[in-house]
């Protein structure tokens, strides 16, 4: 959904405009001199509507996690842009005001073990944020929350290391929802879990969304996971969003060459599909965000790259059809099949 133009809905809960996060690269003898920037997030516009799930997908170095943390203002300094939450720009918040703001925006971390203080009992883990925000805590609070995430009430007195990975992630979720936030950003919520456990957590997230009316931003590298949970999916590449669309729309007809390549690369556990699927293999590695290519950031690996324009001009995220935008100069032509991939060998059919 094109953030910039989509006005037919109620106000989005979260509205990000022109967000940039650049980490300085410094060197120098006594005085640190900045010699460059890692452009982790470089100009992102994003809207998240209430009660919906936005999926952020991308490979390593795409800036998806930085974007998530930037939105939460979590240890990431914003270089530019605004983050409007519920109509209020929180990009400039600091100190106590930022801290207070946190109760309405929460985060679920990738590694449930690392994100829980091993010295705290489950009870403390859950009540601590409540107390920090002056929310009432009674004898039932912890039990109720544990039940909510599918853990036994008795778990309150135990410690994180006594739980399995899936259960720990449930704890992390319980802690996040304890503050009754409206927005939850889940950063790779299942990637550290065993395959057979991932579905449990995904289902729990969905269930909570329904029961609590949560709005999600789910960040993941696994397209299938994102596809499964999201209403809207934004695909990131090298610090920018290259395509954003309704989940089904995106998967059925991706418009950006990168999205196409990405989706074609995901193996499907079905021999019938695998044997007949066409794959687009991308050349080379993802460039470094410290030194991103000029023009379209994807042009170095793009099979549809066209002379000069792709190299020189950075494409804007454009609405190509309702609720579907992409940042590609030639999206329409590619979709129509007017432009063939330059290197036929890159297209691999496995059967």
């Amino acid at each position, binding site marked *: 959904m094109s953030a910039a133009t989509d006005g037919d809905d109620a106000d989005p809960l979260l509205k990000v405009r022109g967000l940039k996060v650049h980490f300085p690269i410094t060197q120098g003898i006594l005085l640190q001199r900045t010699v460059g920037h890692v452009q982790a997030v470089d100009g992102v516009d994003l809207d998240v509507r209430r009660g919906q799930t936005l999926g952020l997908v991308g*490979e*390593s170095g795409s800036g998806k996690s930085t974007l998530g943390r930037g939105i939460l203002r979590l240890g990431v300094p914003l270089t530019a842009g605004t983050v409007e939450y519920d109509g209020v720009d929180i990009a400039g918040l600091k100190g106590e005001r930022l801290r207070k703001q946190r109760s309405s925006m929460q985060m679920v971390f990738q590694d449930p073990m690392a994100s829980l203080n091993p010295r705290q009992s489950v009870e403390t883990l859950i009540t601590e944020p409540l107390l920090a925000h002056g929310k009432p805590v009674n004898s039932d609070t912890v039990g109720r929350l544990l039940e909510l995430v599918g853990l036994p009430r008795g778990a309150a007195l135990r410690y994180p290391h006594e739980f*399995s*990975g*899936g*259960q720990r992630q449930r704890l992390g979720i319980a802690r996040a929802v304890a503050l009754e936030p409206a927005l939850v950003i889940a950063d790779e919520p299942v990637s550290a879990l*065993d*395959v*057979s*456990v*991932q*579905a*449990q957590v*995904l*289902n729990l997230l969905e269930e909570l969304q329904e029961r609590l009316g949560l709005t999600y931003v789910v960040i993941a*590298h*696994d*397209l*299938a*996971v994102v*596809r*499964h*949970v*999201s209403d809207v999916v934004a695909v990131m590449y090298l610090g920018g969003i290259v395509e954003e669309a309704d*989940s*089904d729309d995106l*998967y059925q007809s991706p418009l950006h060459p990168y999205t196409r*390549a*990405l*989706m*074609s*690369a*995901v*193996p*499907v*556990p*079905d*021999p*019938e*599909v*695998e*044997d007949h*699927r066409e*794959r687009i*293999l*991308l050349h080379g*590695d*993802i460039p470094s965000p410290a030194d991103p290519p000029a023009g379209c950031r994807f042009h170095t690996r793009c099979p549809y790259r066209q002379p000069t324009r792709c190299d020189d001009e950075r494409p804007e995220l454009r609405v190509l059809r309702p609720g579907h935008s992409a940042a590609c100069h030639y999206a329409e032509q590619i979709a129509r099949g007017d432009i063939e991939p330059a290197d036929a060998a890159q297209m*691999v059919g*496995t*059967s």
Partner: protein
Amino acid sequence: MTRPVGVRSEPLLEVEDLAVVFHGSRGDVEAVSEVSFSVRPGEHVALVGESGSGKSVTALAVMGLLPLRSTTVRGSIRYDGDELLDLDARSRRDLRGAEMAMIFQDPMTSLNPVVPIGVQIGEVLQRHKGLRKTEAREVSGDLLGRVGISDGKRRLKEYPHQLSGGMRQRVLIAIALACEPRLLIADEPTTALDVTIQAQILELLRELVSGTGTALVMITHDLGVVAGLCDEVHVMYSGRVVESAPRRSLFGEPRHPYTGGLLGSIPRLDSARGEPLTPIPGSPNDALPWTHSCAFAPRCGNRVDKCTVQTPALRGSEHVSRPGDEQALRCFNPLDTREAS
């Protein structure tokens, strides 16, 4: 599948009733037992399972890489008809890297950080092919080219940290294939990589192995990887094989509740949005000991009373709905295929 499976030749590798016991300070732990499978030249076989299922241990046992001091390997591992477990350490070393090679999961840690990659490739050539240093360098450069690293000669001097993850995995593949082994074991070769890179590497593997008659044992937790690559799939749970079948049978009509559960719980890119997932309850930690029960019983939707008191044996049969496909199953109450489909 366009890959020629070839005639049913003699198995290159035959693992029979393999058991691996770790001797730890808290007593012995049987990490793997009753594992049998075989691989023919040119055949691609997958061992699939979650962490702790024993798939990697099985691979290490085949390679002879388990620490001698703290492990006992029982059963039989025959390579080209020879019993590997009867060989001395030296003879096994002679096989490793030459006849059989392995690619590891994490390209970040599997290369020695302080040795140039050229040396790391070259040393295996020097060891097994008796090449001299300069010759080894020459060949190493070519190898890098073959695994898709352009300008290979120049990069021989580089260190692992100067390469991206995908590059490193290519280097590891170059090392593994340097002596044109007849058996290649790939242990989660793409897990640590990004999706687009994963596709590159899988394609590369496919390319390098196909047509050479190299037997491939693919170890992975990712059923998607298996689906497009392997002929035969062995699903492991808690140290034992619970289901073996040709891939079409296995994916089409899984019989073991665990296999079925796995397939049902993974979100698929091609499934419709909102299609509910049916997770397997509990976690792999909940496994029971195989000794008097089915390890999967606590998490099993098809559990019957027998499951918690008796150990199911692995029984081979012809697949119910795919005649001609041999399968093996360790279950008292397998999924009804008609129901599953």
